[in-house]
């Protein structure tokens, strides 16, 4: 599955970039811009890292020989990350994307030593003059997923394979629960924590465990297609994560969240070429195309599709926010008052379950 860019955008971009490259990077205009990517998983994970790599290849396709990209895969989120990032910076990479939350401190430490290199940290919150952050508003996708899951479940139990209890993951669970209950007030979301981003064995076991607990719709916030496969083997419909996982469950994928990084990466590389790069915080969703959904599966009826599309449309046109009040917390207290549309900061700091989620957040 490669990302296809509209031909016109491609041509315009190329022409503009050629003009500006000379202006933006006078000293190095002749040599290709080296762009580095640090991945937490293998490029063949068919999920998170795979989609970042699709974005990287989009950069190569777009800029041709004016860029040179490098990636390092399966980098552990610990002390090793700092060495890898530093090695990229020291070997002439001028723009480096570090694509996992756990690379944050390492990115900042290396950035302090390499003031001329630009860094971009995915899903992070700490910035510096040469460190930008970016993430997708994945909860928008989860709102649609929750709507479908709420209508599909018979047992009223929706399984959710969760990685680490960071706000981003809690947010996804909450968005799923809120929207499942809007169409099915009996529905509950049952999370199971696997403490990993990528471990096909554990992810598949978690899926099996959830199904044995009566879950009949599966969603996940881990990176491999193993849960989708495990669910399909047991006849349970599932939602793909980060990329379209249909080929792993042709009959059972309800839809999939698709992260689309290519356009963002192209924009940021362009900015470095132009000399206009600044440290920014980007958080884009459906409207900007960073978050997309795969085609609905065969179990989704036209009515379900219509309800799901309505949620999606209202988010895109800005008439609806997935977390607009009233939202009740799991303990029955009010999280967001009726009519209140929470700010990005409020959404970012979300660390409590909403009503309809089973269990408690670990830690």
């Amino acid at each position, binding site marked *: 599955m490669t990302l296809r860019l509209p031909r016109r955008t491609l041509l315009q971009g190329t022409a503009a970039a050629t003009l500006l490259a000379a202006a933006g990077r006078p000293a190095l205009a002749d040599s290709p811009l080296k762009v580095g990517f640090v991945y937490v998983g293998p490029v063949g994970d068919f999920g998170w890292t795979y989609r970042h790599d699709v974005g990287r290849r989009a950069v190569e396709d777009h800029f041709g020989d004016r860029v040179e990209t490098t990636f390092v895969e399966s980098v552990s989120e610990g*002390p*090793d990350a700092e*060495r890898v990032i530093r090695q990229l910076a020291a070997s002439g990479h001028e723009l480096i994307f570090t694509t996992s939350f*756990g690379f944050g401190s390492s990115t900042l430490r290396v950035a302090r030593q390499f003031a001329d290199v630009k860094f971009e940290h995915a899903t992070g919150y700490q910035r510096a003059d040469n460190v930008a952050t970016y993430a997708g508003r994945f909860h928008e996708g989860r709102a649609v997923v929750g709507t479908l899951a709420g209508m599909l479940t018979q047992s009223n139990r929706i399984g959710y394979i969760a990685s*680490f209890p960071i706000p981003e993951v809690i947010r996804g669970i909450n968005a799923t629960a809120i929207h499942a209950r809007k169409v099915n007030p009996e529905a509950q979301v049952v999370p199971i924590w696997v403490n990993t981003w990528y471990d096909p064995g554990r992810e598949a076991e978690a899926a099996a465990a959830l199904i044995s607990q009566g879950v009949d719709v599966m969603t996940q916030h881990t990176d491999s297609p193993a849960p989708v496969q495990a669910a399909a083997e047991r006849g349970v419909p599932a939602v793909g994560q980060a990329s379209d996982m249909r080929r792993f469950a042709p009959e059972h994928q309800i839809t999939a969240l698709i992260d689309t990084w290519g356009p963002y990466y192209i924009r940021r590389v362009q900015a470095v070429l132009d000399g206009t790069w600044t440290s920014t915080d980007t958080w884009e969703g459906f409207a900007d195309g960073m978050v997309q959904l795969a085609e609905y599966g065969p179990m989704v009826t036209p009515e379900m599709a219509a309800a799901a599309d309505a949620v999606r449309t209202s988010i895109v046109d800005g008439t609806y926010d997935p977390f607009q009040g009233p939202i009740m917390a799991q303990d029955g207290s009010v999280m967001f008052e009726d009519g209140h549309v929470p700010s990005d900061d409020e959404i970012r700091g979300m660390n409590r379950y909403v009503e309809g989620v089973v269990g408690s957040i*670990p*830690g």
Partner: protein
Amino acid sequence: MLRLERRSAPSTAMRVATPLVAVAASIVAGGLLFAALGHDPERALYGFFIAPLLSTYGLAELAVKATPLTLIALGLAMGFRAGVWNIGAEGQLTMGALAGGGLAAMVFYDAQGLWLLPLMCLAGVVAGMAYAAIPAFLRTRFGVNEILVSLMLTYVALLALSALVHGPWRDPGAFNFPESRFFSDSGNLPILIERTRLHLGYPLALLAVLVAWLVLARTVIGFQLEVTGLAPKAASFAGFKPDRTVWLAFLVSGGLAGLAGLIEVAGPGGGQLVPTISPGYGFTAIIVAFLGRLHPVGILLAAHVVALSYLGGENLQITMRMPVAVTGVFQGFLLFFLLAADVLVRYRPVWKRATA
């Protein structure tokens, strides 16, 4: 048909030579593999083995990476010599990091003074020992298999780390993200060379090698471990209690693993507890221990070879766009050739006509 016949006495020279043979064979096999993948083998081998060592920073990183491997493997080797199998060093490392790092992040985060680091190290060692005492106790008291217990306790330790960093030990200023406060300056290991990450832990590891060598070669304890491993019955006739050997092996290896964990968080870990402390040093150290022939000096060398395989793998990814699997394949080669060479040291292949 080809048969293996046990040699009466494996020669010492060959025992020393096998790791070198294994390394050499891995290099040859690696070169062939690179060639088969369509890369220039000479350039790839250079990128893997030489290029990472050409800068001060690279050498410092080699030492940084070899430090925990050396410390842990030294401890494990003590037990392995006596047939005591501590497979849970990763858990003991985590507990050491938790105890020492917890002191620095939760109690003394404002404190300054030279006393802080030694205190953290002590906490790390004690916590590693205490955690290793669980499998030792269960083994000596109830005869429970120490391999299983120590291995399973690793996952408990990792979950404890995760729970604390995601929960009560979270930095109040970090927007709910899972990381502890930063340690105070006195809680960070001093850097030995400016602009690198080479820290005080490396000389500590070298010191540990020296001490371990003295203990194994020159003391009754070393003799006891050796005899218990080679001939358990003889050991008990000599008055060496097997239970004491188990305890000794677990306490020493647990303490060293705990120290390695503390060194990781107070050194390259950046003076902070995060959900991932080690990329599996506790398990990699098992390879290091055997590659080093369970001998302290051998372990020191083996730790550097294995550390280099990580650096080389990263370098090939960056400079030649090879997949990360290169690192794993190389470590696999190393272990495979070592074991294969080992068989040939202990047994001699003999051609014999099949006797129906």
